[in-house]
């Protein structure tokens, strides 16, 4: 610890952080604990109360990296800020001085009023649970399942897209045909059928989202791969006897990355909507743990009364702000990619 060789002063800190390897490591440090926390839950045992601690500085660092990368686009900055606000809330929720989100205290307390010696900033719901606490805790599940589902959908979609685009021929015919069949179903119907069949759970949501989104992703990647594979560097790789897998992963994938990242941000928004809707329909995450879709569902009847509409508006606005964040990020990224 005593002798730390100083980094060469010519390379500023931010520049080194922006190195893809460093950024991805920081993202993993931020993301992995949150994922384990939400997916693993009580099975983490004694680790549970501490696991999110390393994620907090990582999220803040990641935000700083994003801000300095996107500083040229105001739109992307707003989007990033919205997304990172919820990301930070998700990793800090257990350490914030919040009331237990599942503990009934006093029902139907409007926002900004005190009852039973507790001041409720956002009021309480029909069961008397604190809305603020539920809203903040609720972002964890939407975020984790939304991002995980999109990520898996992208892995599957990209793999099939690269095969269809690069290898072409019969592979392309079969993959594209199956993709078209899946795409011909309305997405919601597909979700409902799959989740009814598999049963409602977070992992099944991932499967359903993958099944429904992968064909569209496959099409995008296929189109990009068809373009990139005509480039001379692919020809050069072929003529030095590289395998098809190597060419797809090393020569094609990095060069189709740009449009995919932009599309992924947009798709994160769709997935978030889909997950919230599924929960609202009772097909997704199950009560009692807080979740935005669930909050909307549970308060749907009571919120008919204008007086209690806050119960519905608060989670609804939260979902919207997260989706808006993803969409603005996508816009900003596209804008920046067009400039250079």
């Amino acid at each position, binding site marked *: 610890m005593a002798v730390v060789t100083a980094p060469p002063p010519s390379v500023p800190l931010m520049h080194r952080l922006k190195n893809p390897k460093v950024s991805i490591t920081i993202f993993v440090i931020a993301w992995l604990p949150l994922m384990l926390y939400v997916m693993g839950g009580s099975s983490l045992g004694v680790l549970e109360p501490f696991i999110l601690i390393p994620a907090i500085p990582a999220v803040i660092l990641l935000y700083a990296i994003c801000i300095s990368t996107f500083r040229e686009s105001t739109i992307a900055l707003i989007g990033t800020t919205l997304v990172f606000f919820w990301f930070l809330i998700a990793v800090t929720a257990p350490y914030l001085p919040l009331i237990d989100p599942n503990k009934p205290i006093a029902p139907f307390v409007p926002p900004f009023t005190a009852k039973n010696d507790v001041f409720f900033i956002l009021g309480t719901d029909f069961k008397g649970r604190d809305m603020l606490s539920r809203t903040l805790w609720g972002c964890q599940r939407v975020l984790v399942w939304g991002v995980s589902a999109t990520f898996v959908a992208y892995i599957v979609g990209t793999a099939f897209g690269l095969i269809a685009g690069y290898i072409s021929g019969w592979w392309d015919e079969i993959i594209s045909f199956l993709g078209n069949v899946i795409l011909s179903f309305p997405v919601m119907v597909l979700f409902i059928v799959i989740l009814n069949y598999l049963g409602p759970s977070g992992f099944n949501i991932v499967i359903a989202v993958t099944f429904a989104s992968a064909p569209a992703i496959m099409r995008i990647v296929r189109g990009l791969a068809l373009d990139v594979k005509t480039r001379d560097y692919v*020809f050069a790789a072929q003529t*030095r*006897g590289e395998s098809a897998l190597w060419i797809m992963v090393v020569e094609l994938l990095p*060069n189709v990355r740009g449009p995919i990242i932009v599309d992924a941000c947009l798709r994160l928004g769709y997935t978030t909507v889909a997950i919230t809707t599924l929960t609202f329909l009772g097909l997704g995450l199950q009560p009692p743990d807080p979740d935005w879709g669930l909050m909307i569902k549970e308060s749907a009847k009571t919120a008919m009364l204008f007086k209690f509409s806050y119960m519905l508006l608060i989670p609804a606005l939260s979902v919207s702000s997260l989706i808006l964040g993803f969409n603005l990020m996508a816009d900003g990224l596209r804008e920046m990619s067009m400039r250079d």
Partner: protein
Amino acid sequence: MPEAATSSAATLEAVQPATGETPVLECRNLCISYFTRAGEIPAVVDFNMKLMPGEAQGIVGESGCGKSTVALAIMQYMGKNGRVVGGEILFEGRDMRTMSEEELRQIRGSKIAMVYQEPMASLNPAMTIGDQLAEVPIFHESVSKDEALSRARKMLESVRLPDPDRILSSYPHQISGGQQQRVVIAMALLSNPKLLLLDEPTTALDVTVEAGIVELIKDIAAEFGTSMIYISHNLGLILETCDRITVMYSGEAVEVGSIKDVFDAMRHPYTRGLFASIPVPGADKNSHPLVSIPGQLPLPHQRPPGCNFGPRCDFFVKDRCDVGAIPMTEIGNGDHHASRCVRVDEIDWDSTIGAGDESEPTVPGDVVLKVDGMTKHYEIEKGALFFSGEKHTVKANEKLNFDAREAETVAIVGESGCGKSTFAKVLMGLETATEGSVAIGNVDLAEMPVDQRGPETISNLQMVFQNPFDTLNPSHTVGGQIARVIRKFGAETDEKKVKARVMELLDIVKLPRDFAKRRPRQLSGGQKQRVGIARAFAGNPSVVIADEPVSALDVSVQAAVTELLMDIQRENRTTLLFISHDLSVVRYLADRIVVMYLGQIMEQGTTDEIFSPPYHPYTEALLSAVPIADTHVKKRKVLLTGEIPSPSNPPKGCPFSTRCPYMIAGTCDTIPPPIVEFSHGHRIACHLPRDELAAMEPVIQIEKEPAHVA
């Protein structure tokens, strides 16, 4: 009004014509800037030009020198971020900057017309050509549709398009590139403009098609009396089409004058360097190597103080060339010949340019590559979906026979569709031949796809690609990409040795070692091409295919890359297969030439044999089509009519019979031509009698030995 304006500006204007006529276009001290995030970027600085009625001005320069910006400024199409920041553009004596949007719209298309590089981009793919052409007179002169169509028809005839009625009713994609460009020129001429701007109008076309368009442009100037500004990077084209020339470098005009003055008595070091770096007859890879201009074009916001060319100039003098703005000064010897050089009176312009290193001609060794009856046919099914029947053969390569020896450069010359890319694919193992053999040493590669070849065979045969922007994977570092090749070929396995070899290869292609860590986007086109060469030579190949390796590069860079390729070849005694359409480059570097047309070899022989009679009629036309930037060269005109037929439906007999001026009806169009051998290895595939072929006159003749070529 124009008289007064002209006379008051006379003091500013160095180039002043003697006649009292109003110039069609005059640019005075024109400064154009682009405004970007990085601030103001001056694209063109202090540009002066005077274009008299009926005159043709050429603007020549490398990419980024501002020549297209001048054209856009004249059209007042500067986009959102471009602006004229100083000076005037006078069109028929009126300043275009003071005209309203409405006036400008009227002038564009009716008095000033522009022809762009890419014809397909200038035509609307959703409208028939007739409708598009008719729009011009309907919009500008409010004539009836019938009247407009009949004018359009007449104009198509005068740009010499066959069957104008068919063209009028077809859509742009139904006609060939050369025909499209003729349609675009017809469209530009329909309103009888005073000024025609041509921005690289033939760059996208094949040489023999280009020759036809150039001929047309020359005739237009004579017939319609239109003034022209011809923008090009090709000095040879400017020589053929223009009266005067402006040489631009890094946003400034550096030399202005009549074609004769500038070509024969150049008075700016950049112009001189430009001429020394293009291969003209007389240049030879061994005794008269090309001399490239050292360094690179400065970026617009990194221009040096004083003379922009200073850092690359041999005559640079500190404290003279790098202070203040360098003015354009007129030289007494010519017709308004001016140069932007402070030392114009001191430099000995007749001295020879420090010639490149002479070298001994290499002696070719044994035969390395033997191509024997190689044939490649593609079967194409007519129905799109599943096996719905009729097959149909594309004859991409038909019975190719030639061989290449160690340390020899064999050039394969031909235009698009001649089958040279297919040949490269078969050689590299991405396709297998239908018939015949392609042997390197004792290994027959014709039916061996790349995944069946051993690493030794693969590393023995490598390729340098045409497009510098495509040749390297933009996502990986330069060093990583070279290292991958070394590892793949098993040349070195130890990580340290691989690294050392990467550095060694970078040294060989004369790039700084720290480029290994860079990504391709941080490199210029020429640098990327050098990396491509390093990659090809990483496994010590015995045969390298170079597919137009310099055609996408700027002239001054071309010479350096060509020389590099030659040096490495000489060093390693590599066999080089040089695929090109540019006969000037080929004449300079090839030992033997194979001329291909529509998948077949028309003629092959040593470079001297190809460039002197007897010729195959196609070779003759090709030689005549190549523009040569030398006023002493006199060419015999051989113009071809028609277009290159589609390889999927080639003519029955000789593939060239549809365009051949010597076509013997009944023979050439039905029977494949016999191969006539003139001397050992010089073979011509033609029906013409031996005597007639032997009696052909030379196409290129040099009047007297040009003095300035060192």
